[in-house]
């Protein structure tokens, strides 16, 4: 069984922007190890000569006319959901 270390879980959490508690790290170490062991079955599958599939219906380069559409959505509607707003803009924590 592939064993995921606490350090790997912490690294994955950092990459995923998740601040995990120590209990969570322990729990996900177990869960992730179990899941990754299960999917290991694919390692031994012979796929010689096959290409990977990323989509299944064969559509390519689907575009639509570059036209402005009126959604009748107002800036106020969009800002209504924001956790913090100032001067008609999304307000975030100080970056610099």
């Amino acid at each position, binding site marked *: 069984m592939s064993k995921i270390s606490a350090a790997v879980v912490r690294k994955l959490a950092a990459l995923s922007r998740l601040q995990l508690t120590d209990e969570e790290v322990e729990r996900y170490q177990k869960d992730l190890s179990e899941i990754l062991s299960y999917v290991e*079955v694919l390692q031994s599958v012979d796929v010689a000569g096959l290409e*990977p599939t990323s989509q299944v219906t064969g559509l390519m380069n689907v575009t639509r006319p570059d036209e402005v559409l009126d959604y009748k959505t107002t800036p106020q509607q969009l800002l209504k959901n924001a956790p913090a707003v100032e001067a008609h803009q999304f307000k975030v924590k100080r970056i610099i």
Partner: protein
Amino acid sequence: MSWEPISEITKKVQAGKLKAIDLVDESVKSIKANIDYHALLTTADKSDIVEKAYKKAQEIDEKVKKGEKVGRLAGVPFIAKDNFLATSGYTTAASWILAPFEAPYQATAINRLEAEGALLVGKANLDAFAHGSSTENSRFGPTLNPHDKTRVPGGSSGGSGAAVALDIAPFALGTDTGGSIRLPASYCGVVGYKPTYGLVSRYGVVAMASSTDVIGPLTRRVDDTAVVLDVISGKDVFDGTTIERDSTSYLQLDTNLKGKKIGIIKQYFTDGLDRGVKKQIEISIEKLKKAGAEVREINLPSIDLALACYYIIVPAEVSSNLSRYDGQRYGYSAKEAKNLDESYEITRDLGFEAENKRRIMIGTYVLSSGYYDAYYRKAQTVRTKLINEFNDVFNTVDFLLGPTAPTTAFKIGANVDSPLQMYLADIMTVAVNLVGIPAISLPAGESENMPVGLQLMAPQHRDRALLGLAKAYEELA
């Protein structure tokens, strides 16, 4: 009361024999009577959704009074899984990170249904972000199975399945990324339809895994599925993955079973299959044979790999699709954060459910450099192998058949300690999503008083043929 077929309801509404307002009343009554099951995340009282439904119902009734023509679904109440954006009420995806979120636009599917006079009366519970097989991953608590309150309704569209089984509305919309329409349909004893990938627009639906997500209806009967599919399917400029549909109605079905070739998926009949479920599926097969279908066992050797393949590809796509939830522009935002990084990290840790976080981290792992080829690329290539096997088999048979799930609905809490055990509930449904073909789960008797689901599959774009077979089966049952 139980609902008449949708085409009967709409005929009566158009003729003025049934009032749309009374139909909304029926739904509201049922929402209130079944509150214990927690099928919905919305209420009947003080609900923007219900108020809007009443207003629209009144407009329909006035039009009928004036002798004007009303839409194909005029007056028919429906439920949408709460990962569909609607401009009335809130959209939560059963997650804390979207609380509260008032969608500024609406899903194409809901727009199309409303344009034909269907009336949204509530939003259904789900596993948060549709991650799960039991609806227990909802931040707002599980939905109970209408046949046994100690059991799960299946997931992730568990609220939609329960709502239809409880007669809250004649149909509900769900989403199916790996079985999330078919599994609850099976566990709740209703019809659940997963269309060909791309047949129904996903615009305005919370994305989970973009290469497998589809949306579809849960109903009481195949004809109702066809009516709803008629309205929601077809190309949408706002979803680049949508495909053209043919112009004939999905109600035009070929139900003749004579000479239809049906392949029984050998790999689905192993020791892991519950005996009671197996018995009901065998009875179904006998019925189809007697009615003239040519049934034979077929071999799909790579189908046993589908679940492993799925649990690499889907978390990878999940980790990407869920990166947008960062607590800055909408939804929950951790107040205690001291800087922007902390704001992202605490918001996401507290806002997501454990299963969301597991999938995000698995996805991040299989996509990270050094592991990408071994996991993600390998899974995508095994996906090709699986697709090739299905294509080969569909050269010899018209349809495939198996159970929807290895067991009937399990007890609440039975699988919560082992995510892997929970994943195994989807073992018979995920292959369909990886291959992009249509599939349906139909009620097929009971095992120890719990419903059993029969799963039928067809090649891509053969949705009409599949519904025809499903209706033929329904008439036999």
